[in-house]
């Protein structure tokens, strides 16, 4: 694929206190690519994902989304942190889906989806409503628009969360273990919604434990362990023939 990558990470470091969680991450994601990030818990994959939309500040390295440095401005070789408003403007372009859904419990499904377009993008409420209804229909929840999150199952909540992120028309979607908090029988409906999104050409980074999804939908697979990228390649190849010992050890436990 030619041109600018959608996401480019170069030697990204992140520490919490004295614990180094990311020890130099290099990842490139092309537009339209579905990149699945797998690895044992504590390997830093969620932390990396949260660096992409600046929920976590990186300590060293560079991270670009669509050619723009995330969270910082470079003048000479010095980095200056962006102001709150500028960070918010960058985040508008990046959708995020959380493990614990994080829907707004005091709003209905429809209100959850309308909230950001109206409050942040200043869209016309009627138009935002039309689009929100279409999005909820797309994730199979046309009949749940008036329900509060507390009235929905986990799978339904997560699909509302996907619709909520899509309502901002993001150019990149981040999924942070979107099915890990779900009962097993509800995982499929969320993965289906994500698969449909991938087929529409959305650029996605998916932190997941669902190897089947990675194999079927992913364009690339990144295996992380202990804060570094151990192995990366097309999902089928990595899953079928891991080259690295650590990858082999991990896959033998989860497959």
């Amino acid at each position, binding site marked *: 694929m030619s041109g600018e990558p959608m996401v480019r990470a170069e030697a990204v470091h992140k520490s919490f206190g004295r614990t180094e969680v990311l020890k130099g991450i290099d990842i490139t994601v092309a537009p339209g690519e579905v990149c699945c990030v797998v690895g044992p818990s504590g390997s830093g994959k969620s932390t990396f994902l949260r660096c992409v*939309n600046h*929920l976590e500040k990186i300590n060293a390295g560079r991270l670009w989304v669509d050619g723009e440095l995330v969270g910082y401005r470079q003048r000479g070789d010095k980095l200056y942190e962006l102001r*709150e*408003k500028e960070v*918010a*403007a*960058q*985040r*508008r372009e*990046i*959708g*995020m889906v*959380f493990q*614990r*859904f*994080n*829907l*707004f*419990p*005091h709003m209905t499904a429809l209100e959850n989806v309308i*909230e*950001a377009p109206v*409050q*942040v993008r200043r869209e016309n409420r009627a138009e935002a409503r039309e689009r929100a209804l279409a999005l909820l229909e797309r994730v199979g929840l046309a*009949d*749940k628009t*008036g*329900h*509060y*999150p*507390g*009235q*929905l*199952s*986990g*799978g*339904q*909540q997560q699909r509302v*969360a996907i619709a*909520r*992120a899509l309502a*901002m028309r993001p150019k990149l979607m981040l999924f942070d273990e979107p099915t890990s*908090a*779900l*009962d097993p029988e*509800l995982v499929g409906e969320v993965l289906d919604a994500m698969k449909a999104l991938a087929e529409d050409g959305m650029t996605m980074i998916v932190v997941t434990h669902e190897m089947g999804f990675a194999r079927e939908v992913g364009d690339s697979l990144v295996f992380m362990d202990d804060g570094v990228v151990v192995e990366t390649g097309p999902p089928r190849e990595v899953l079928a023939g891991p080259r690295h010992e650590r990858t082999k050890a991990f896959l033998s436990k989860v497959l």
Partner: protein
Amino acid sequence: MPVRHPLRWVAAAVMLVLVAMAVNTLVTNERFNWPEQFEYIFAPQIMNALYNTVWLTIVAMVGGVVGGVLLALMRLSDNPILRAISWFYLWVFRATPLYTQLLIWGSLGALFPEIGLGIPFGPVFVSWETNTLLSAAAAAALGLVLNEAAYMAEIVRAGILSVDEGQREAAGALGMSRAKTMRRIVLPQAMRVIIPPTGNETIATLKNTSLVAAVPFAELTFQAQNIYGRTYQVIPMLIMVCLWYLLLSSILMVGQHFLERHFGRSERGAARPARPAALLSSGREQTGGGGGGGGSGDGGGG
């Protein structure tokens, strides 16, 4: 045979005797002078004092809530100077007696006879006499508001901290500013933690208005003192004032009960009324623990 509770009977008998003695003295002790007391219960001075007590309570609570939200936001802010100011304010106002604070506000005129606007250490453009600017009513209201703001700040802060961090992250990831996240996402959810103790604060404030006698300002207790100063009917007069406080507190308690019921209900989304269809479908599709997943913790149940 049911279990016997002989002590209950003894306790009941003792209570009965005590109540009978109390009623007897209320009826037979002529020094209560009830006919005269009942004349005072709706007397113009008392009515006026009652009015003052009520509006002082309202002003103290409205001002206290506004000030409390500001102080709580300052306390939780990233700015260390704002945090320090808020901390200092709470420290001073919660560590000194309200009565003493009210005495200070009431006597401000003695220390600063005039208050003026101008350049610091430079010329003064306009000035007012302190006692005109800060009337007894204003001093009383100011004292109560400043004190109440300190207590409300802690309540609001607890409410804000009770909202799951994931809510702020989700709003931030959507590109919402922090101010908007606070107003649209966090504060509405914090309400269910803020409301119940605020009800208690309102009742406490109603009773605290009696302390503005320190200013001095003519609220209920102060007027009662004025009257018994003339009539020497101390306890009857105070009992009568207590009846007014009881009535006002009871009204507030009823209001608090309904507010708590309202907020306790809306927190459990599945039990929301007026959505029968929702109840039916969620009853079937609800999964085990999925309900709380949206960040709505538990809390207000008891």
